[in-house]
């Protein structure tokens, strides 16, 4: 019983981290219709930014306090606002008309470039940003002890999910984005500035990636292979949930989180195997993912 509860709570925590990593990825695919393999390295960049801001910029006294969290979030926002339009208008917009495989390969190329760039700038040794991890102390749930920061991550994931849902479904800008998601060409005919919507959506997705990376940084060691690990898991989460669906990303993240937690508690060596086995099973039953939108087939 204890083990089951532990698996569920561990799964929830792990799932919230995965959701933060995957929600930007699914947003990029939903709006821009591109598979952004570089999302993993953007996540890693967010983690490195957080490490630099907390250990390099903030004075010693503030590192263990709430200001560090605000500083991390602020750094993520600033970086996203700077880089988002640059990357989208500068690189991606030239590839929308072509083969979708080509855009995947372009993002894969950007991923490879960023991975080495990160190693060049921050070095290959892992960084640690452990000071913010102790902000919330320890929490006891049904007799099991957890770090408070983990539940902060759960709250953050829920908050981000609700915010994105609200922004998409209850604001004017969100409804215009939904229109662009359904059919960009007709939206353009109706007078929507699709380029601006694409740039804005990518900036939001980049911000979510940086945010996810920045707030995950205190929980992990920020090292060289982070981007590759994250993108592999994000793929699994988004494919399970359905490409382009926020709710799907949430469900997928929860499923993958629980599968990983179960594997870690029962057979640790089968961790990645479990994740991909779950993904394969879901694809067998629902070939487009759990919550993928119905789409017409082109003749």
């Amino acid at each position, binding site marked *: 019983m204890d083990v089951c509860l532990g698996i569920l709570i561990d799964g929830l925590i792990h799932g919230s981290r995965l959701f933060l990593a995957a929600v930007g990825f699914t947003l990029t695919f939903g709006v821009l219709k591109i*598979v952004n393999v570089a999302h993993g390295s953007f996540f890693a960049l967010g983690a490195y930014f957080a490490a630099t801001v907390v250990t390099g910029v903030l004075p010693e006294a503030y590192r263990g306090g709430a200001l560090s969290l605000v500083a991390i979030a602020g750094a993520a926002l600033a970086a996203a606002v700077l880089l988002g339009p640059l990357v989208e208008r500068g690189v991606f917009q*030239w*590839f929308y*008309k*072509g*083969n*979708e*495989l*080509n855009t*995947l*390969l*372009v993002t*894969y*190329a*950007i*991923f*490879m*470039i*960023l*991975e*080495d*760039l990160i*190693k*060049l700038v921050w070095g*290959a040794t892992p960084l640690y940003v452990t000071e913010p991890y102790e902000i919330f102390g320890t929490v006891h749930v049904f007799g099991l002890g957890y770090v408070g920061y983990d539940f902060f991550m759960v709250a953050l994931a829920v908050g981000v999910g609700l915010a994105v849902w609200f922004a998409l479904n209850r604001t004017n800008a969100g409804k215009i984005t939904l229109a662009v998601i359904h059919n960009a*060409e007709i939206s353009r005919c109706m007078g929507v500035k699709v380029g601006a919507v694409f740039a804005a959506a990518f900036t939001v997705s980049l911000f979510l990636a940086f945010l996810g990376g920045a707030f995950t940084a205190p929980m992990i060691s920020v090292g060289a292979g982070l981007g*590759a690990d994250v993108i*592999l898991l994000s*793929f*699994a989460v988004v*494919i399970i949930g359905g*490409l382009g669906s926020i709710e799907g990303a949430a469900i997928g993240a929860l499923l993958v989180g629980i599968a990983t937690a179960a594997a870690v508690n029962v057979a640790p*060596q*089968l*961790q*990645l*195997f479990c994740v*991909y*086995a779950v*993904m*394969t099973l879901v*694809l*067998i039953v629902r*070939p*487009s993912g759990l919550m993928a939108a119905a789409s017409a*087939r*082109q*003749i």
Partner: protein
Amino acid sequence: MPFILSAIPLAAFAVTAVWLLPGWATVLIQVALGKGLVVLGLVALLRCGLLSFGHGLFYATGAYTVALVGGTTGITDALVLTLCGAVSAGLIAAGVGPLLVRYRGIFFAMLSLALSMIAHSLLMQTPEIGGSDGLSANAVTYFGLAKDRASIYELPSIVTVVVAATLAFAIAYLFRSRFGLTSRASGENELRLEYLGVSAKRVIYRNLIASGALGGAGGALVAATIGHVSPDYAYWTTSGEFIFIAIVGGTSSVGAIFLASVLLELARSVAMQAAPHTWQMTLGIFLFLTIVFAPNGLGDAVRRLARNLRAPRRIGQTDGNEYGRST
């Protein structure tokens, strides 16, 4: 079949080159040819419109077959081991095929990625076959001679060149055959192919088996050359390298693929000496430039350049090769 006649002078040139080149260059060419075979399998799937991110699965199968069969049973002949590698990888392709052929596009890529990563984690977690350290694949003989003795007569490289060339010409013939043209059609528009009465799934399944067998043969050749196999052969970044070679080589020419593979190996050995920490970035920049300027591969870009130089285009004139995409 004029291109088959070119096999004889090409083979003669290859064998002479192998005799004249220094040791490190022949090893490099052996590895490049082996990887080129794997990429040939990848291109067979690309022609069907499917990008496989998990070709490392077949590559690792072929390589581990050489290590395991050579190490445990008494069979050590290089040609027999290569055949074993191709057959085992082909069987794995036949096994996972019915699942894979149901998906297209990004789902096919992710499912193949998932399968290769499952294989990777299984290989890492099984200490009986080496775990994360891998296995040695040194028990390979060439016509009865052990590898170090056979190297004096350049037998390993000649065997590799002959096997790669034979398979390359066989596959080139296959690509030009009715089956090859049907595969291309399946990549262009599957629904119309089905209306013509051809089962696209069956075409893709057969291509998958061929591509698996090629991957296994390539993996076996590389394992025999290097003498060591590790789970990294199944990791997704290895598959990424194969994709890189496939994009640079393009899907229209078999020879361009082997050329691209040799180029990559040369670039890797230069980069490892000059700038080992920026190897991935160099690859990424090169892949990016290739997609922007030569999305159909270098061979096609050279062909287009030659055509433009010979007959400069006038305004409004197309080269007849660009199909508009319908909405």
